[in-house]
């Protein structure tokens, strides 16, 4: 029996008559296929449906002609590609370097620094963008004003509007995400490999470039692909910083088509299929690159987690990393917090600019407690159920010989083939049209289900990239010692995966806590979360109160992270 067949063959020892493992994997495939393909099929079908909403269906290709015949859409697509590539290129280089420094070296206060980077992922993107406008606007930006007071400086040094402004604001969150995604994988790197490189006379950066990066390829590739896809789908910051200079992106065009009155769903969904094509190309590229190679770093030959000493560069490196961490997290956080105490965010020259009223009004809002509870339930449900499901899917993809594991892998990417703006609509159509899902409509359970689908690519692929690092001989040793599949999984695989699963769970919690587009159409008054409450405030012109709610959400996520994060360290690989 080969090592890779452990999961499928083990139960056969006890129940030879019923192929439980095969049945379970088939059921898993069917479940994932339904969860993913139902909304995707509805979206693609909708691209051919030309009638106005509510009218008898008329099918044709006009939606596709409008989507791809409009030069403005093609220009927007090109802007999206250039913005995404620019931002991901910078973020990947910085992210790999920072994750390596945090996970593999003796950098001082690295745990704190990692947590500070995590913070950037928790921050609400729109208020953060507004905060950066307040600092870097060419006319009134505070940083520009301070710099212009210096001798020799005339005129603003920065202008937040435009291509590089968008890249900058995205980078402040993207770098943190890269650290979040890559650090667990870097921790699973056997230090013996680095030590061997040093023994051969290779320097620190040379080791990083020639040993660490190639062997971390699966994780880096996944982080890059995930980042690229999310970049293609981003629109809030682009809308804010691109509109004044008429820089439009793909997602803002989809949003326009959906919000037109009447909405043009055919053209919007046709344009939305670009993401599907991109994902198929990127997944093919990933498979081609990883095919036939092994990336095992955790094997049965012993494992060293010894940190690499930075020597005399230790404190200067700390200074640089701390500067980056403070710039991307503490600065926007401080601006956001400041904004919640202002009558009007960013207006210092109005009468009585400071107030506690926003906090008072939010904290006494009768719907706050319910929204808080719903957020906990939706976030927690998504984190726990989602993480278990993603771990199972990833395990089947990497560690079994299940015939359709390639299909399962592809399916796990596809939720991101639906643009975030269209995802809410696609899920709404799915839930109300599928009889057994209808009773869930409007409940918190359906929100959990929707958010599990939405976070699937990240959860599965992140777990998969770490599973690829685990050598099969660990499980084989367990089997040789008489352990069947479940004890092996529980006592060998799970502890090795723990830090990654904790990260996946936290990302699921956080994504659920701040999601609007996926759940806005599925929810009801009873299932309103903090993010939807913030949206309510924002639409009522109470941007500052919306930011207060966002800050409460950040606090909730930070508490969750502080509670759960040490668990990953305890269960994971230690230096013992």
């Amino acid at each position, binding site marked *: 029996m080969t090592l890779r067949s452990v999961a499928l063959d083990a139960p056969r020892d006890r129940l030879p008559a019923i192929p439980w493992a095969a049945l379970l994997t088939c059921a898993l495939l069917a479940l994932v296929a339904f969860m993913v393909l139902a909304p995707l099929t509805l979206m693609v079908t909708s691209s051919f449906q030309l009638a106005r*909403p*509510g*009218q008898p269906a008329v099918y044709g290709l006009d939606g596709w002609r409008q989507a791809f015949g*409009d030069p*403005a859409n093609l220009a927007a697509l090109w802007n999206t590609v250039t913005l995404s590539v620019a931002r991901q290129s910078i973020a990947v280089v910085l992210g790999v370097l920072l994750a390596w420094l945090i996970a593999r070296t003796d950098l001082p206060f690295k745990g704190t620094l990692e947590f500070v980077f995590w913070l950037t992922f928790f921050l609400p993107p729109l208020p953060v963008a507004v905060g950066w406008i307040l600092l870097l*606007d060419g*006319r*009134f930006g505070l940083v520009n004003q301070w710099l212009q007071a210096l001798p020799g400086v005339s005129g603003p040094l920065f202008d937040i509007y435009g291509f590089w402004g968008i890249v900058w604001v995205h980078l402040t969150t993207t770098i943190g995400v890269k650290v979040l995604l890559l650090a667990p994988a870097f921790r699973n790197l056997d230090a013996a490999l680095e030590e061997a490189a040093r023994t051969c006379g290779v320097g620190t950066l040379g080791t990083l470039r020639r040993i660490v990066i190639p062997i971390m390829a699966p994780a880096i590739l996944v982080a890059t692909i995930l980042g690229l896809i999310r970049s293609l789908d981003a629109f809030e910051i682009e809308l*804010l910083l691109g*509109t*004044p200079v*008429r820089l439009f992106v793909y997602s803002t065009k989809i949003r*326009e088509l959906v*919000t037109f*009155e*009447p*909405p043009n769903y055919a053209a919007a969904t046709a344009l939305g299929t670009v993401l599907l094509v991109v994902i198929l190309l990127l997944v093919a590229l990933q498979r081609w690159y990883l095919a036939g190679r092994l990336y095992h770093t955790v094997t049965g030959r012993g494992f060293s987690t010894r940190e690499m000493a930075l020597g005399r560069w230790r404190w200067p490196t700390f200074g640089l990393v701390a500067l980056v961490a403070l710039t991307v997290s503490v600065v926007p956080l401080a601006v956001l917090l400041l904004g919640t105490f202002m*009558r*009007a965010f960013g*207006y210092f020259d*109005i*009468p009585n600019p400071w107030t506690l009223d926003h906090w008072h009004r939010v904290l006494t*809002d009768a719907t706050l407690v319910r929204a808080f509870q719903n957020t*906990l*339930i939706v976030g*927690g*449900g998504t*984190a*726990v*159920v989602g993480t278990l499901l993603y771990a199972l899917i990833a395990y089947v993809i990497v560690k079994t010989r299940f015939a359709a594991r390639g299909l399962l892998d592809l399916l796990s990417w596809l939720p991101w083939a639906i643009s975030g703006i269209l995802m809410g*609509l696609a899920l*709404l*159509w799915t839930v*109300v*049209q599928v009889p057994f899902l*209808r009773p869930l*409509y*409007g*409940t918190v*359970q359906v929100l959990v289900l929707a958010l599990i689908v939405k976070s699937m690519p990240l959860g599965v692929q992140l777990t998969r990239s770490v599973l690829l690092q685990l050598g099969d001989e660990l499980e084989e040793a367990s089997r040789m010692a008489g352990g069947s599949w479940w004890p092996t999984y529980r006592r060998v695989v799970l502890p090795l995966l723990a830090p990654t699963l904790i990260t996946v769970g936290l990302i699921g919690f956080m994504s659920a806590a701040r999601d609007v587009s996926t759940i*806005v*159409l599925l*929810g*009801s*008054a*009873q299932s*309103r979360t903090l993010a939807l*409450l913030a*949206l*309510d*405030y924002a*639409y*009522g*012109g*109470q*941007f500052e109160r919306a930011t207060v709610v966002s800050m409460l959400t950040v606090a909730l996520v930070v508490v969750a992270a502080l*509670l759960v994060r*040490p*668990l990953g360290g*305890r269960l994971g690989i230690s230096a013992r």
Partner: protein
Amino acid sequence: MRARLVIGLALAVVWAACRPGAAPSPAPGNAAGPAAPVGVAGGQGAPTWDAIVAAAKREGRISIMGPQGNETRDALTLGFQQQYPDIQVDYQGLAGSPLTAKVLAEVNAGQYLTDLTIAGTAGVVDTLIPANALAPVPPYLVGPNDSDPSVWRGGKYDYADSSGQYGLIFSVYVKPPFLYNPNQVSPDDFTSYRDLLAPRWKGKIVLRDPRIAGGGQAAITFLYATDSLGRDYLRQLFAQDPVISNDDRQIIDWVARGQYPIALGVSDTLANEAIERGLPVRNMDTARMREGGYVTSGNAVVSVVRNAPHQNAVTVYLDYLLSRDGQLAWSKAAGYASQRRDVPTDHVNPLFIPKDGITYQQNYSEQFVRMRDEILDFLKTVMPS
């Protein structure tokens, strides 16, 4: 210890997410169709108001989709909730195409979960009525506060649809011609919309996207349908290189910062909020413009969804909404005058109240809503894509 605590918390969360009680109880009659109404035509003869209220209390809830914003939400729910504590108001804030998409998805799937919508005219006239998603409103107007239309302007209820059945308008207001920054724009420079065409305003105007339902569409409809302005005027206006945005908050910020000192079609709710906070933004007075102006219903159009699941609660809620108290609460939250004549207007900015001697286009009526396809086609020829 910590591991056990975290695992225990995780299990508790999963249990909370999965237990049946975590879900809002589905509307009665959800699967089998709505409960039989007591008070609506087609019910049991002519029931007393008390019988309708009792039946509404038995239904126990009403589901409303209406404008976003916590103050609007409070105005549309708290007063009713105090008066009828036994009828729970499930209020979901949605507007524009998301609202129509959700209602249509429910109705088309036979999921009758929503009772009422409170929205703008475009979605009602353009989408919900043609899709047969609405029920006539008049049969529900049988309460002590809404059965007598004589207290309403013109002695009758006004409807968005020309059939006078589906979209009851309870408030209209004068939409100011534009928002401006008083540090850069003098109102004395304006006596006509044509003054916006002066070279000094080139590149200084921001327009809320007129392809999306809302203020921008209403503004362009007025300019397009006004004889002395029309297509030629719009061509010249777009030659002024206006920036198009659909983010009201951003538009107001630009005006306040002076980046674009003039804004057309911006949300009045947000503009009023900004003025109240002391930001340097002001509304131009329609009375200055020789072409006149227009009145709009904003989001003050109430409709009953077909097969609404809580027929009696709908009847009771409409009676509250159209009562003096209900209209006063709405008027104070929205800042606009009610169409009901006995509702005070001392809290309403006089700029929003129609004045004698000025011609106002009734921008919300079906005639103008129907014109929008033609306008959208025209916009494709003049708007930067």
